């Protein structure tokens, strides 16, 4: 049966709550609702951009799909489902035990933000890229070596680099090593968490280009988590905007970047500085204050405390994503209303 029509991953009502301990006895005093009811489909071969400010939950969604949360924080509370479409039918990754998850790890790989801390400094490049192959494949030593050399070539590094250590490389080269490692097991899905934001401007473009090429060559699906909206627009097919643990808008890159409908997406996009000195910022929507802490989320709509069009009802009813036309999903019933004119 063809699996083309089905989404690669279906996330349904995902909740990730981290307990917070306090007091003398370190008992639980509350929980951080990092992700608070998120649903979306990840289509085969697409790039889904996840954007939002710090505390929005975008990184946590990526880590939940990669099933890393339990390892990072054993007390985490997980709800909902993350269905991965496999040859043997759908598997719910959420809450999968470690041993069972290991069978799927080869399929889902990660690229991290900081190429300095994500590579073990005591391993050679060969050792780093070979490690997932040792864990997840039965390749012989020689086959592994050949695979590593092929990967190095593919990400634009010279074969003699295989015996060097991470500290001998620049940030951009290290990110290439991280990408080669992620590709080693021939994954289907790559979660890239801020993959270029730690790099110099001139090197960012190289890594973005490389990720685009690899996607075409290997038919990869990306979840691209980043705060730089112009980069996300450039690489993504669809974009999800997150705020305080919820998706507030989801649509094609064009819809969200050029015609955002949710008041938060509008404010976020109008805040992005443009590399054009004549760009008119007079229409900019200025948000007051900062994103609230996810420890004390506002009732109803999480954005209402900063929203220019908030009204009394927003404190009561939590909005859900609704189709506002052409598949653009927006979590705000008043999305197209104008903010009151400034007096």
């Amino acid at each position, binding site marked *: 049966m063809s699996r083309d029509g089905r989404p690669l991953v279906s996330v349904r009502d995902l909740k990730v709550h981290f307990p917070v301990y306090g007091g003398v006895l370190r008992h639980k005093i509350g929980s951080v609702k990092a992700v608070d009811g998120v649903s979306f489909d990840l289509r085969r071969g697409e790039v889904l951009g996840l954007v939002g*400010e*710090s505390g929005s939950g975008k990184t946590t969604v990526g880590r939940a799909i990669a099933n890393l949360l339990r390892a990072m924080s054993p007390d985490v509370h997980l709800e909902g489902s993350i269905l991965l479409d496999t040859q043997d039918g759908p598997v719910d990754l959420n809450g999968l035990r470690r041993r069972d998850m290991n069978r799927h790890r080869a399929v889902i790989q990660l690229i991290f933000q900081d190429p300095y801390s994500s590579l073990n400094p005591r391993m050679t490049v060969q050792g780093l890229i070979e490690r997932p192959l040792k864990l997840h494949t039965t390749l012989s030593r020689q086959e592994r070596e050949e695979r590593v050399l092929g990967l190095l070539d593919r990400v634009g590094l010279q074969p003699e680099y295989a015996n060097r250590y991470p500290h001998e490389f620049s*940030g951009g080269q290290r990110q290439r090593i991280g990408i080669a490692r992620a590709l080693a097991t021939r994954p289907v899905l790559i979660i890239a968490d801020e993959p270029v934001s730690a790099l110099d401007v*001139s090197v960012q473009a190289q890594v973005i280009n490389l990720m685009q090429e690899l996607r075409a060559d290997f038919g990869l699906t990306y979840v691209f988590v980043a*705060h730089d909206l112009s980069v996300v627009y450039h690489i993504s097919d669809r974009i999800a905007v997150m705020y305080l643990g919820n998706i507030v808008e989801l649509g094609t890159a064009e819809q969200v970047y050029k015609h955002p409908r949710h008041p938060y997406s509008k404010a976020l996009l109008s805040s992005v*500085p443009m590399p*054009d000195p004549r760009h008119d910022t007079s229409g900019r929507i200025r*948000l007051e204050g*900062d994103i609230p802490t996810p420890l004390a989320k506002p009732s109803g709509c999480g954005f209402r405390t900063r929203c220019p069009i908030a009204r009394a009802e927003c404190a009561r009813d939590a909005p859900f994503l609704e189709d506002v036309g052409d598949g653009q999903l927006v979590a705000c019933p008043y999305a197209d209303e104008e903010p009151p004119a400034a007096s």
Partner: protein
Amino acid sequence: MTSSTQDGAQKVLEVRNLHTCFDIEGETAWAVAGVDFDVHASEFLGIVGESGSGKSVTALSILRLIPDPPGRIAQGSILFQGRDLLKLSYADMRKVRGREIAMIFQEPMTSLNPVFTIGMQVTEMLRHHERISKEVADERAIEVLERVGIPDAHKRMGDYPHQFSGGMRQRVMIAMALVCDPAILFADEPTTALDVTIQAQILDLMKDLQARRQGAAIVLITHDLAVVAETCQRVIVMYGGRIQEVAGIEQLFDQPLHPYTRGLLDSIPHEQNKGAPLRAIPGNVPGILHFPSGCKFCSRCPDVFERCKVEEPELIEVRPGRMVRCHLTEDLA
């Protein structure tokens, strides 16, 4: 004591032939290798560059905050109000720092002292530089905190840094820097650690302050060309410890003359070419000890030719206010 340039702009700071080096593993690394520029009164000047370009070290050298050892300002002069800052005694320099020339940094949390209240930290600067009573200092501090947009400033004077959000902390940093009304404010990546909606607030604030404070200049140091486009009137592009190009903001974006500036602008994704390969600058920024001889950019330049590898071009004024360090544009002068 200020002098005028040809176009009438008043110079408040003249940096000449500045050289700053660091001793790294027994070798001398020239972080700033001969930098000349002026800061004009009332201007919003940008210094753009990647890591290792020397942009931050230039600012730290002007404020004489280079840790010695391993660093050292080896050569040059920095004329401010008729005095060479590099010749001032330590005590005299302390009178300049914070009062005449102030600086804010990227990380507001590490630049604020966690065990003192905001009020104490803002007034400390005032009382260090001016003989005024605590009451007057408090009043001035509240006034400046209000000016940078801290709500209920008089109540928040007694709060500690951890009680402020990241954006509010950066506002406090700006308040501390402005409380003595300095002639020049250096801002080193002031919004890099902030979210984009907060960044917009802080950039608005800085533009507003620059417009309202008569004669005072802001020098913004950043890697982000979009932030520069939004705020600055004039831009200095640095690479390898050297100034490569100086231009008015619109000139720089309309007609970048140095291949490095062109490369930087080309590597930014633009709306019009979504998904298309970006024209990246090849290679990596060399380590500080490994910049090539000749032109610092020649190892990555798409237009490189033999002369570039042996002879470093001079920084030449090709048009009034427009300077470029490149063999290819020498004939324009």
